[in-house]
């Protein structure tokens, strides 16, 4: 196989479950994990005579997304019915949006090894989720759990603009971070709150027309997304190079065997007989509503990154890390506001350095950090005001991480307060000078390196508590002699 002769074309369709309390067209709860069919009301069950009523909170989340990706938010969009029979689809149709989706266009910036790339979005539309078929646990029968039926989804569709599994994963990660950042989706991939379908095709380098694509359904981890695309690229190239033809079809990824398998071909594809849902008037989003949602939007990661660079003087790298996830953003913002008067760069270094390392060592997520932003702020305030040195701060951080405790109490109980009292320091230094006459002579003879020896000895004598600036100053005077 000669992959370098081929260009890969990938488009993603992502279903993000919107974090509303109730369902998109009924008042039933969306909470995960309840007993089967306990969170399905007559509307979700598709009982005779029931009617859907749109959930304003779901629409609002779609608007938030549209604003976050710079999309056009349609003043009028249409709910349509997608008709097909399946036991976990109670009405025999799914309410979705077809011709006029609520979010149109937009784009997302992604980072890959090669640098930055912009992925354009086609659309994002609102729809309801189906229920779940349970094939295990039932002898010769299938169970249906309709708790998930009617859960609000935003289906986010990209243009076919990604050219590698790396780009696809980078996009999926960026999208995942964004929907969590703007708090429209909890991003829980295990529970199915964020899942991707990948459309993959290959074409000879330089060819304008797209190759025939296959759609790989329901990829619920970034690793599966990557593996499935990699497998599919290889499969398609080998197929074509062996003289075969790619057939347009829907495929499923099997993580156990690390391969994709045909689910249904285009010929078996349903004719969904889409038509506007007569139970739902056109969805109207006024400019006032958009403005209201915009006013309640959090600062977007890209905007914040620029602010960190320009206003706080952080490096692009640090600013990027601090805006990569909602957790990092929230932690740093909390740290910033609690650590008044502390240099932002110091804060950034601590979050991206000590804290991040400690999390990695413990295998924890930021939300589970053993040292909260407020506690870390307390520590950094003491560094800032000279109570403790950076070195002591690192030791204290380790203690706080493993044993907990408040910074000021720890400083007192462990006698870690930096010695900023010149009198006390002078006593220590004078003693050192009298103990090391040779080194004093060397220094006075022009061997300035010996200065470091005295600093080291002084730190040792004070258990690192000497204020480094004061130490330097005082030592210079004392060594210079009378």
């Amino acid at each position, binding site marked *: 196989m000669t992959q370098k002769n081929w260009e890969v074309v990938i488009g993603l369709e992502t279903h993000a479950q919107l974090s509303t309390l109730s369902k998109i067209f009924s008042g039933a709860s969306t909470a995960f994990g309840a007993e089967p069919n306990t969170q399905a009301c*007559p509307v979700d*069950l*598709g*009982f*005779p*005579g*029931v*009617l*859907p*009523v*749109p959930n304003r909170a779901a629409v609002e989340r779609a608007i938030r997304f549209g604003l976050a990706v710079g999309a056009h938010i349609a003043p009028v969009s249409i709910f349509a*019915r997608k*008709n097909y*029979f399946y*036991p976990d689809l*109670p*009405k*025999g*149709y799914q309410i979705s949006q077809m011709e006029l989706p609520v979010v149109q266009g937009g784009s997302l910036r992604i980072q890959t090894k090669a640098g930055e790339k912009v992925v354009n979005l086609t659309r994002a539309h609102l729809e309801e989720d189906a229920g779940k078929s349970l094939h295990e646990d039932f002898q010769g029968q299938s169970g*249906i759990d309709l708790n998930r039926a009617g859960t609000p989804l935003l289906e986010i569709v990209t243009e076919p603009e990604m050219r590698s599994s790396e780009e696809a994963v980078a996009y999926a990660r960026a999208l995942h971070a964004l929907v969590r950042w703007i708090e429209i989706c909890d991003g829980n991939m295990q529970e199915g709150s964020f899942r991707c379908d990948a459309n993959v095709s290959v074409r000879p380098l330089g060819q304008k027309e797209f190759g025939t694509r296959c759609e790989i359904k329901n990829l619920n981890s970034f690793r599966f997304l990557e593996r499935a695309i990699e497998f599919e690229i290889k499969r398609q190239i080998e197929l074509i190079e062996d003289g075969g033809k790619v057939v347009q079809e829907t495929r499923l990824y099997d993580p156990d065997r690390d391969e994709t398998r045909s689910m249904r071909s285009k010929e078996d594809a349903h*004719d969904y*007989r*889409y*038509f506007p849902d*007569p*139970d*739902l*008037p056109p969805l109207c989003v006024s400019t006032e509503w958009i403005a209201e949602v915009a006013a309640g939007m959090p600062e977007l990661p890209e905007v914040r990154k620029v602010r960190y660079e320009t206003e706080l003087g952080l490096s692009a790298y640090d600013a990027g890390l601090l805006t990569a996830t909602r957790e990092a953003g929230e932690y740093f913002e909390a740290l910033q506001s609690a650590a008044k008067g502390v240099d932002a760069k110091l804060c950034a270094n601590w979050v991206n350095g000590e804290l991040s390392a400690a999390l990695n060592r413990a295998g924890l997520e930021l939300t589970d950090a053993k040292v909260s932003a407020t506690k870390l702020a307390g520590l950094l305030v003491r560094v800032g005001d000279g109570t403790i040195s950076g070195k002591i701060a690192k030791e204290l951080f380790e203690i706080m991480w493993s044993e907990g405790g408040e910074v000021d109490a720890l400083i007192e109980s462990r006698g870690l307060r930096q010695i900023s009292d010149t009198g006390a320091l002078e006593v220590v230094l004078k003693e050192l000078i009298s103990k090391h006459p040779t080194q004093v002579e060397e220094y006075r003879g022009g061997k300035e390196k010996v200065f470091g020896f005295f600093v080291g000895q002084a730190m040792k004598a004070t258990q690192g508590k000497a204020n480094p600036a004061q130490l330097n100053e005082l030592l210079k005077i004392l060594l210079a002699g009378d």
Partner: protein
Amino acid sequence: MSLTELLNQGLLEISAALGRREVSAVELATAYLDRIDQAQPELNAFITVDRKHTLQEAALADEMRVASPDLPWVGIPIAQKDLFCAKGWRTTAGSRMLENFISPYDAHVVEQLNRQGFVTLGRANMDEFAMGSSNENSFFGPVKNPWDLTRVPGGSSGGSAAAVAAGLAPAATGTDTGGSIRQPAAWCGISGIKPTYGRVSRYGMIAYASSLDQAGMFARSAQDLALLMDVISGHDPRDATSVNRQDAPCSHGLHQPIRGLRVGIPKQWFGKGLSDGVKAVVESAIQELLALGCEGVEIDLPMSEQAIPAYYVIAPAEASSNLSRFDGVRFGHRAAQYKDLGELYEHSRGEGFGPEVKRRILMGSYVLSHGYYDAYYLQAQRVRRLIANDFERAFERCDVIAGPVAPTTAFPLGSFGADPVQMYLADLYTIPVNLAGLPALSVPAGFDHGLPVGLQLIGPWWEETRLLQMAHAFQTATDWHTKRPASYSGVTQ
């Protein structure tokens, strides 16, 4: 007044008798139930009669009347079309599919009526899923016309109309998707109203064609219709197509004079296709309106002849999707024999649905199919818009449109067995109104060879009160609405 006489009275008289304790809700319900039992073998107007359930409701109503003496309708019996879900009542939609379905919740209309203390006498027969113009498509057998037992009562709300006409109930609920209230009202010689689309919530009304379905009422007079409209109208947040408006109650404008109102007479509706007998009755009814001071205006509804083809694209399209939920999985009929999921669907639906329902599901699936959608569904929607435009233009020149309800009187049972299209064509005067979403009613206007003929009055959107006002004036000047079929006039009691 004797109990027998009271049973044939209007709502105000019955309410007054209940208020004066001349009769209890239980006595009243018992008397109607006795009549229903007696008539049922002949008319088959009801799918479900549950004496115990009804008498329980009536007993509660008698208690409620003591507790809330100001509520006028407490204890008034009513028949419910079997399309409205009612908690604890079997709700069949006239179909084998729902032969054993007991609703877990109340439709909005049922809830409104229950709240006011109305007592359900039973569940009225109807064409399966409201598809039909003769009530011959009911799984539970056809309803007979009380004026002539060899004839149909009209449909789809045939049971409701026959029940009111035969004095088995003072009023009944109905639904009208293409004429299903107005046409049976006309053929059974009673009054029936189809409100503006969006005026009455569709919540809990089993859907046939969602963009056309509208709940309404049958009664013995326009006045009763107005009083009932005030009970069932109003915004319901559970129906996204229910419109939130603050209209004055219909009954308030009822007695206003109609002098000076302009009556539009559609020239297309009095030509070919309209039987001479019906034409003569409708024309003389319009003469009566002119005699009451209305001004006659000829109007043009050129697109209305396209209404039937457009309707038979849109309604089946919506129905094909609305009826997908009847799959044998969660409720309703499930076939006893099936090998796999495909057969579960095929057999359950094959056995559960009757031929007319299957025909419309097939038509609807076809017109929505890939490659046909634009030519049929979208084209039909354009025609629908043009029909509405016709009416809008017409209402610039008139206040109310008057015309026939149906081209003939009730036809004999089995007339169109082999040719459903001929029956479809009989809805040419009612269907355009549904496509435009307008309010309309039918009032008794006379007889042709002993069979009732209705006058249809159509109003601009939300002008139910104007229609009822005109219908009431007509009924004040005439007595057609007081005529009862001889064998059901109460004399046989």
